[in-house]
């Protein structure tokens, strides 16, 4: 999203809303809301009945006033002011009895719809894969869950009510007018169709303004979220002022978009109110003429004026109400983009859990290209892992090691007939079962703002403390945890005690170990752990997981040497495989690594060979001369 503020934003400022300029079809996005509103169907009906009663009550107020004036003006009629006054009081009371519950009901429905939408959003996000998260970033999703959802809420709370009110008023007031004077009623209502038509013409253009406002808000959210998440990096590089400047741009961008949307509404309001202002003139001029001609009573004038106020009020509001429709349509589009996004990795229909899977893994001719990548991350991989074996993956960065592990637990979606666990194609296993059988500890050590216990026992929070202690011990974390102020109950992560990189890594390792799964995949989980500790952990692992399958990714030969079998990767392909002994004797890449890592520098030919091999892919550079330029 970031680039949109720097480059894309400028272009957009000038060209105005970039979507189709006018259409009502955007309102179609509201159709998505129907199922959410439907469940409150009969409550809506009730609310509408309430609104009708309320509106009729209000329409009687001018009538009461008119009656009083008539009775006082005409000496032939006894003065009648007490009962009309009581009538108005009664209307107020009825309002409280009927309209309060109706409003309450409608707003509660709006809140419930908000609740349902958020729930669905969160629900759907939980099952999405990498393609989704590359497309929508955290801040953007948060903005949808809060800001866009609240647009929908405004629409249900006010938009629907206003439109309903308008329609009811339109149904009630004219008949009442016609009862008193057909001519005056016709004259009064004459401008009305023009107002409504103009309103509709204008609102057709409103959608892009709202969409862009919502998108700009999402940019503010994303920027804030990312920046605060990476605040330490920003601060370490002393880039705060720069970032504040950039935030100001983003905030200003939003301000502009919000202003444009409001300006549009203001123009609309101008047109609508100016057109409605014609009616009172007609009532008074034509009305007075009719009074003088004796066609109507004096009291009819205040009646008509009062009704006009009711009508004009809802006409003036109809612009606002329509704008709520469109902003909710924009919100709804953004919400349902997420809700309707099908997770890329899904269970086939009617999958049953398979019993007794042998913890063996076979990968046959697996290739995979990430969405939006140009080159495949892995090419034609053949890997065979026997049940109970410990296998090490070594290789240069981005050589496809992590991708394979992710493919095995279906974090990325691979074709059928490429990966088999215990002889079963993983596409035929329910994802839930697959991930239960196979525990992957990802490379990035992520801790939640939660206690050590919940972080370690994340998959099942009901485990006993002893079990958690055992896992921390296996991950060589027990001393660290025991030293924490509240032991297992100590909150770590974002708003807890700061753990060192190695401690975080071992916590996530414990999270994988506690599951005691038949297959354990460790993605370079020792990179921040010191060698001594690593040795201890691996020795423990060999004992604990003697008859279980383990795959570990490492850069260290000292780690890999413990494995039963080793695969060496480069550029998405397996380049060597064998046992430690075999590979060392073979004298290939692994042997070079081993030599360099164990400091056998005297064997210069190996080092040189290793470097030369690496060098083949490195472009010739002029690091030296440039260095003098910059290092100064």
């Amino acid at each position, binding site marked *: 999203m970031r680039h949109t503020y720097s480059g894309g934003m400028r272009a957009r400022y000038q060209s105005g809303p970039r979507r189709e300029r006018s259409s009502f079809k955007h309102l179609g996005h509201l159709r998505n809301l129907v199922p959410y509103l439907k469940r409150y169907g009969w409550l809506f009906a009730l609310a509408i009945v309430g609104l009708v009663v309320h509106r009729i009550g209000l329409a009687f107020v001018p009538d009461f006033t008119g009656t009083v004036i008539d009775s006082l003006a005409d000496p032939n009629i006894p003065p009648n002011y007490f009962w009309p006054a009581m009538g108005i009081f009664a209307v107020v009371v009825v309002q409280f009895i009927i309209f309060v519950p109706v409003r309450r009901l409608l707003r509660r429905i709006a809140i419930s719809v908000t609740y349902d939408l958020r729930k669905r959003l969160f629900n759907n996000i939980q099952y*999405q894969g990498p393609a989704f998260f590359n497309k929508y970033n955290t801040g953007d999703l948060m903005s949808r869950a809060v800001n866009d959802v609240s647009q929908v809420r405004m629409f249900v709370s006010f938009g629907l009510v206003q439109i309903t009110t308008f329609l009811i008023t339109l149904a009630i007031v004219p008949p009442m007018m016609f009862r008193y004077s057909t001519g005056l009623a016709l004259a009064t209502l004459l401008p009305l169709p023009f107002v409504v038509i103009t309103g509709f013409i204008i609102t057709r253009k409103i959608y892009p303004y709202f969409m862009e406002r919502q998108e700009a808000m999402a940019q503010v959210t994303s920027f804030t979220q990312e920046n605060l998440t990476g605040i330490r990096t920003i601060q370490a590089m002393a880039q705060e002022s720069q970032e504040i400047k950039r935030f100001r741009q983003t905030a200003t961008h939003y301000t502009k978009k919000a202003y444009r949307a409001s300006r549009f509404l203001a123009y609309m309001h101008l047109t609508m109110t100016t057109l409605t202002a014609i009616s009172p003139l007609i009532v008074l001029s034509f009305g007075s003429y009719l009074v003088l001609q004796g066609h109507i009573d004096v009291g009819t004038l205040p009646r008509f004026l009062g009704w006009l106020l009711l009508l004009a009020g809802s006409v003036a509001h109809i612009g606002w109400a329509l704008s709520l429709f469109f902003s909710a349509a924009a919100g709804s589009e953004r919400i349902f983009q997420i809700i309707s996004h099908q997770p890329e990795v899904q269970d086939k229909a009617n999958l049953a859990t398979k019993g007794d899977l042998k913890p063996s893994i076979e990968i046959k001719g697996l290739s995979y290209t990430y969405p939006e990548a140009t080159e495949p991350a892995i090419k034609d991989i053949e890997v065979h892992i026997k049940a109970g074996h410990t296998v090490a993956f070594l290789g240069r960065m981005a050589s496809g090691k992590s991708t394979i592990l992710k493919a095995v637990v279906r974090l990325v979606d691979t074709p059928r007939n490429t990966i088999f666990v215990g002889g079963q194609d993983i596409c035929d296993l329910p994802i839930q079962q697959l991930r239960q059988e196979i525990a992957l500890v990802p490379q990035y050590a992520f801790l939640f703002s939660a206690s050590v216990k919940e972080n370690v026992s994340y998959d099942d929070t009901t485990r006993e403390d002893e079990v958690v202690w055992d896992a921390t011990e296996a991950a060589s974390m027990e001393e660290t945890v025991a030293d924490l102020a509240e032991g297992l109950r100590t909150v770590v992560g974002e708003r807890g005690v700061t753990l060192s990189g190695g401690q975080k890594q071992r916590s996530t390792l414990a999270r994988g170990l506690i599951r005691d799964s038949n297959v354990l995949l460790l993605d370079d989980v020792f990179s921040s752990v010191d060698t001594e500790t690593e040795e201890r952990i691996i020795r423990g692992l060999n004992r604990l997981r003697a008859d279980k399958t383990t795959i570990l990714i490492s850069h260290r030969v000292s780690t890999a040497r413990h494995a039963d079998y080793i695969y060496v990767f480069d550029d998405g392909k397996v380049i060597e495989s064998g046992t430690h002994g075999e590979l060392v004797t073979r004298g290939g890449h692994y042997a070079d690594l081993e030599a360099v890592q164990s400091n056998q520098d005297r064997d210069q030919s190996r080092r040189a060979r290793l470097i030369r091999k690496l060098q083949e892919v490195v472009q010739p550079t002029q690091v030296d001369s440039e260095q003098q330029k*910059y290092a100064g």
Partner: protein
Amino acid sequence: MAEASTQHPDRADSKYSAFDQHLTHRAVNVRMFARLLRWTKPYRLTLGASFVLLVVGALIAVAIPLLLGRVIVDEILAPQPEVSQYVLPDFGLIAITHWLANLLNSDLLLAAIILYVGMVLTQSFTNLAQSLTLTSGALKTLRDLRVDLFASLERKPSSFYDHVAVGRVMTRVTNDIENLYNLITSFIQIVADFVPFFIIIWVMFDMSVDLTLVGLGIIPIAVVATVIFRLIITKFFRLIRDSVSSLNQYLQEDLMGIEVVQLSGRQEQNIEEYTAYNRENRKHEFSAIDYEVLFENLNTSLPSIATALIIWYGGGEVVQGSISIGVLFTFTYFVNMLITPISGVGQFFNTLFRSMASGERIFQALDWEEQLHEPEHPVELPERLRGEVQFRNVNFTYKKGNKVLDDVSFHIKPGEKLAIVGPTGSGKSTIIRLLARFYDIEDDTVFVDGIDVNSISSKDLRQRIGVVLQDFHIFSGTVYDNISLNNPDISKERVEWAARVVNADQYIHKLPNGYDTELAERGHNLSQGQQQLLAFARVLAANPEILVLDEATSSIDTGTELIIQDGLKKLTEGRTSIIIAHRLQTIQECDRILVLHRGRVCEIGTHEELIAQKGIYFTLHELQFQDVDKADAFATPEDLKQRSDRSRWLHQDDTDDLIGGLSGRD
């Protein structure tokens, strides 16, 4: 998240995280509001213009019914002999109409209609201009407040972010600021609503004191209702804001750890936990709505109640002959205008209470005292630092926890390369954090070039000390943006140079758009090692005088590391460097090694000295290079020198030649 499972959110109103917990809830609304108005200062002209326009519009709004009633009806359509005791003032409208009729040489009715149309149009355009200026002023005010809030967060110290969740602070920057919009706009609205109020009240008092008092009789009702409403509602509005904050935080963390969530099969449970927060939010919204609707309805009923009162009382007066029908008629028309501002005040208070829950949270963040101690008169650093670093008896403890550094002292000579090794959690990273002034430390404990770091501004210091953090962050944006961190002083050439030094160049060229490739949030579309290289290049591009590498190559394979090491060698020559690493191979090039254990300096010296000591370093070394024949366990200084000479291959244009030469030599 922790609490959510053990303690159901529904049952614990007060279990909000740090920061939200610190909200005092002792909001003095008026003072807070006054404070908010300070941000309007640059836009007072705009907002003032908006206010004037609003008043003009309001005056026209009063004049229009007078024109209709007094001029069109009384003067033109139904000229009547004076019957009633009271004649409504026409504020010169009759005279103006006559003047206009003379001017246009038309009849009076046409003049009046022209006048009416003119007034309506003026009113419409005044309203338009008013609403545009108001929107613009309010939006810009909030933009500034938002930027100020962001700036204040940007400068909060590390210790703040140790205990405050990002989701919570960001809610303040986004939603809480939005909530203030209605407050500013309705404030201006309400002030202007009182203009017709005072005109009308004057006219009404002039017409009939009794009736006016009857009409105003409902004001006490409104006041009492508002006071009661405030007492009840404030609590709910706060609970709503808190629960939105919880929702945001939960969602944010869940998204950050989504991979773990899915791998652990925790989706269902997380949905439940999120739903619990969601339900809590709904509960408070429901409660607030119940009272709000009641209060709103009372406010909107006020005009009807006043009308009823006036008809009731005024009807009697007409019968007794103390007022005319016309007065009663006008009163029923005016009473709406009279009551609108009063019910408007009620609505305004509703908005005020709602917004103040947000205002409170914004100002709390602005006022949060946790700041890094900055010197009042920071020492001017020389053009180029020599790069001497000294720690003198440094002790350090994080907020929650045990002593991390215990009497740590060491001295790095200018241009020296120091390695820090030690088990995880021994305090290595803490040393770096203190050197880069992420935390406050006692005076006279840490020195750079002999200057106490406490007397250097943290910004200056961090520009001179480049730290490759262990928990670096990759932002969404292009590769360029990530290396330069959007710093305009860093050229593209420099970015590419830095990438070449760390050998990141190689994979960057393979990305779809090279350096212009968009990286996903947190570098999702790169491998961990590739991300680490970017973080490394980022620091090199900034050209710091002291280079600090905190596990900068931990996720990088040995081959790539070798290349980087060689590339770095020249770069770090004569430049003070501190290198933290677990792989001893990484620190081979260092002059001295410091062994840290449980926050204490256990050993310090050259590789040979420490090996001779047969202490911790010796053991570590043995362990890592166990395959090596003991006698040849380490290279002699001569060997090291030789090696560095040889590795010059990387800096040569014609590498093949050199490599050939290298292999030929053996």
